[in-house]
């Protein structure tokens, strides 16, 4: 991309984005899917963990209950008690008390172990004080017939157990401190004949049960809670929330109030619910589920608690965030790798495209250029047997269409005289240097052109010549210009030589003239001799004229411009030639445009000379015989025209002589070329030089038998 065009840089970005955006989208989707998946799995893992814990917790509660109920049944059937009931002897009652005491001390989780008579009076009571079971003396035994659980227990039929609600122990209308969560288990004691002898009441210390509950729930991510059927906390981890129903000012400290969003909790046995407050996992505990005997509670036969584990939302959010950040980290690193890859790919793609485009563009530019240039641009193979490319200019220059076998057409056109030079150029094989050759070709229309063919070898990376590339130029005009230059240089040399001869020739002529005049006087009486002298005089004058013509032609042309009306100049010329015109009886017709302005800035004397030379040519009597002309008629027509974008005046001088052949017309302006017997052949050449010095054009056309038509075009001004 070293030659990056202005639109290449954003193009890299565009391509990059074209690759990167889909990748990014896929990456985003994949990341999102991964995150969701991870989250779901996490939640599922959590659910499973929580459920497992809750199951254990539930199980522990149920077992504790079962154990308590078993103990109750045991006590109800306690042998010492039975004997005491049968005999009523105080020593038996003491033994029963001792048995109860041992029982309580071993168990360690009954705050009170009591036996009450059917009236509700305590008969036996073992208190657990600081881990020591103490038999309460008879004097301190109380009547408890007003207690609800006593009443309920006394109403129990055989085989049924009364379980009180789990609440805090109240002593003297005050909640005992430290808090003593208690459940009272009671069952009736019956005789063999089914009469009630009393009830056994166990004040089960719930603390241990709760502690076990908590232990089984430990190690998990959530917060463990135990709720009763009304939603009050039996265990909340926060004492301020527990036992709300025991306090008059905590009647609304219930789980459904605080966690109002966890609605499903109260609808299903087991479950998990995600709410804005967090993740709730619960299991409903039926503590009385395992029972060989029916149990009865204050609320009915079914006791329901809920074991709940809460993962608060902020903790979840933390987890989610952790997952998210992990996913993002991976996505980011993956993304960066992808970005780099995309960038590299994009850059390469753009570079490739740019180079392709630039190749296409440069090829198109090459073709345009090759088509536009006037020279023939060619490529050929290493032995020049075949052209690989020839530009369209070939058709223009060779005058032949660019056919398949161009090389044959090319070579066939070569002028016979130049075959050798052309072949030398064609038959270079494997030569290391550039070559150059000039030769003429002959076009199908007969026109000859000079071709300058030059080229150089094209090598591959190893330096082997693979072919040649070159240009063939039409240098015809160049050659013509060179010829003209050489000619004018020759003439300049001639002019200088002639100028140098001026003194001598004129002096010689003067001497001849002078002596001839003197001689003429001396032979005035001898007419024949005088006649000879006159002929010598003629010849002398002609010689003089010839010299003057040549000097004119060789001398540099100076142009002193002034505005002249061309038709005026024509008139002056005719005045100068008046004698000749009269002697030839020539008729000169002048045509001029009606509103024509024929004023040009020209050298008056020079233009008179031009017109004079042309007219003299037209008036020459030598032309008469060829067309049997009896009357010389010359037509001069003036018109306005344009020459090379400038206003100009055209003068046409046409005679009714024999005209000139095509060859003669082409050579008419050549110095010293004349079709006449007596003529210097310089008249038209001089005229052309003068006209050219004015920036104009002098041309002659002729049809044999129809006279010569000379056209002089002069720009109006030098600019």
């Amino acid at each position, binding site marked *: 991309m070293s030659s990056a065009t202005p639109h290449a840089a954003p193009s890299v970005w565009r391509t990059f984005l074209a690759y990167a955006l889909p990748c990014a989208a896929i990456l985003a989707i994949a990341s999102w899917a991964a995150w969701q998946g991870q989250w779901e799995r996490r939640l599922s893992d959590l659910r499973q963990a929580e459920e497992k814990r809750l199951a254990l917790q539930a199980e522990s509660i149920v077992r504790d209950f079962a154990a308590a109920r078993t103990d109750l049944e045991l006590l109800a059937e306690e042998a010492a008690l039975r004997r005491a009931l049968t005999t009523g002897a105080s020593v038996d009652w003491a033994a029963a008390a001792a048995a109860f005491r041992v029982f309580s001390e071993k168990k360690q989780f009954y705050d009170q172990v009591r036996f009450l008579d059917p009236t509700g009076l305590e008969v036996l009571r073992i208190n657990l004080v600081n881990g020591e079971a103490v038999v309460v003396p008879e004097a301190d035994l109380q009547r408890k017939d007003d207690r609800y659980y006593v009443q309920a227990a006394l109403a129990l039929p055989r085989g049924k157990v009364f379980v009180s609600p789990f609440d805090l122990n109240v002593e003297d209308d005050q909640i005992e401190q430290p808090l003593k969560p208690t459940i009272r288990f009671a069952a009736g004691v019956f005789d063999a004949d089914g009469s009630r002898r009393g009830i056994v009441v166990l004040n089960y210390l719930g603390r241990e049960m709760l502690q076990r509950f908590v232990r089984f729930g430990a190690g998990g991510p959530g917060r463990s809670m135990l709720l009763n059927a009304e939603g009050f906390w039996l265990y909340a981890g926060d004492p301020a929330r527990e036992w709300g129903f025991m306090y008059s000012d905590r009647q609304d400290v219930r789980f459904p109030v605080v966690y109002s969003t966890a609605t499903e909790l109260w609808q299903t046995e087991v479950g998990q619910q995600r709410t804005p407050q967090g993740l709730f996992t619960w299991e409903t505990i039926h503590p009385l589920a395992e029972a060989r005997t029916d149990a009865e509670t204050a609320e009915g036969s079914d006791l329901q608690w809920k074991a709940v584990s809460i993962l608060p939302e902020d903790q979840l959010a933390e987890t989610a965030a952790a997952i998210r950040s992990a996913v993002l980290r991976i996505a980011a690193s993956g993304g960066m790798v992808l970005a780099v890859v995309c960038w590299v790919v994009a850059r390469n793609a753009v570079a490739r495209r740019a180079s392709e485009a630039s190749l296409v563009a440069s090829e198109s530019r090459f073709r345009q250029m090759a088509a536009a240039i006037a020279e023939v641009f060619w490529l050929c193979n290493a032995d020049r047997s075949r052209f690989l490319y020839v530009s369209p200019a070939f058709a223009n220059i060779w005058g032949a269409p660019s056919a398949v076998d161009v090389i044959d057409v090319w070579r066939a056109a070569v002028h016979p005289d130049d075959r050798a030079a052309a072949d030398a150029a064609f038959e270079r094989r494997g030569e290391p240097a550039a070559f150059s050759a000039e030769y003429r070709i002959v076009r199908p229309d007969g026109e000859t052109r000079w071709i300058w063919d030059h080229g150089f070898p094209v090598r591959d990376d190893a330096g082997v010549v693979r072919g040649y590339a070159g240009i063939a130029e039409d240098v015809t005009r160049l050659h013509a210009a060179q010829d003209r230059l050489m000619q004018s240089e020759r003439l300049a040399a001639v002019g200088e030589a002639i*100028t140098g001869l*001026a003194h001598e020739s*004129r*002096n010689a*002529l*003067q*001497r001849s*003239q*002078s002596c001839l*005049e003197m001689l003429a006087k001396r032979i005035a009486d001898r007419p024949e001799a005088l006649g000879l002298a006159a002929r010598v005089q003629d010849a002398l004058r002609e010689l003089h004229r010839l010299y003057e013509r040549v000097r004119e032609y060789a001398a540099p042309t100076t142009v002193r411009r002034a505005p002249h009306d061309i038709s005026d100049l024509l008139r002056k010329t005719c005045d100068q030639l008046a004698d000749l015109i009269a002697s030839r009886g020539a008729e000169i017709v002048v045509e001029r445009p009606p509103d024509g302005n024929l004023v040009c800035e020209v050298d008056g004397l020079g233009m008179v000379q031009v017109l004079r030379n042309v007219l003299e040519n037209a008036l020459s009597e030598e032309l008469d015989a060829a067309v049997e002309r009896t009357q010389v008629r010359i037509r001069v027509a003036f018109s306005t025209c344009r020459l090379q974008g400038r206003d100009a005046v055209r003068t046409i001088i046409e005679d009714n002589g024999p005209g000139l052949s095509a060859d003669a017309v082409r050579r008419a302006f050549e110095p010293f070329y004349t079709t006449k017997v007596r003529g210097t052949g310089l008249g038209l050449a001089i005229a052309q030089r003068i006209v050219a010095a004015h920036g104009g054009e002098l041309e002659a056309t002729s049809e044999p038998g129809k006279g010569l038509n000379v056209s002089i075009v002069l720009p109006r001004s030098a600019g």
Partner: protein
Amino acid sequence: MTESLRVVVADDEPDVREYFAETLAELGHQVLAAAATGDELLAACRRHSPDLLVTDIRMPGGDGLSVARTYAAERFTPTIVVTAYHDQATLAEASEPHVFSYLVKPIERPQLEAALTIAWLRYRQFSSLRGEADSLRQALEDRKLIERAKGLLMQQAGISEEEAFRRLQKSARNENKKLAEVASALITAARVLGA
């Protein structure tokens, strides 16, 4: 032309000299000398004081134009130049008041004759004009002298212009001198007297 002129000719070609001598004689003029070199031309001019010169330009021993120029400074003499050259440089050199005609060789008799006639005519007109100019100049000079003398008189003698002029006239008449002479003497005298 009826007047017979005293002419000196110059050309390095003997044929041409012979031609000039013969033809000019036929035209009624006197050929006092025919010089072959520039030096001879100058010597002949000084010896004969001709009315007119006819000379070539390129000659050994000094070219005709410079000789004519030299001689014209001593004595203004109309010159006809006959030469093979007609380039700009030579023409420029020949454009001096004493060159009255420039002929390009080869020439024939009619051209020579015409040139002579015209040249002499022009010369005569030129001379009279020059004479006129001279006398005018002189008159102007005299006028200036007389004015100055008048001024001095008026100043010194305290007289009017008319009176001053009359005094000068009187003095001139009395001493049979020209007015300008008297004026000049007065001026000189005044200078000597320290006026």
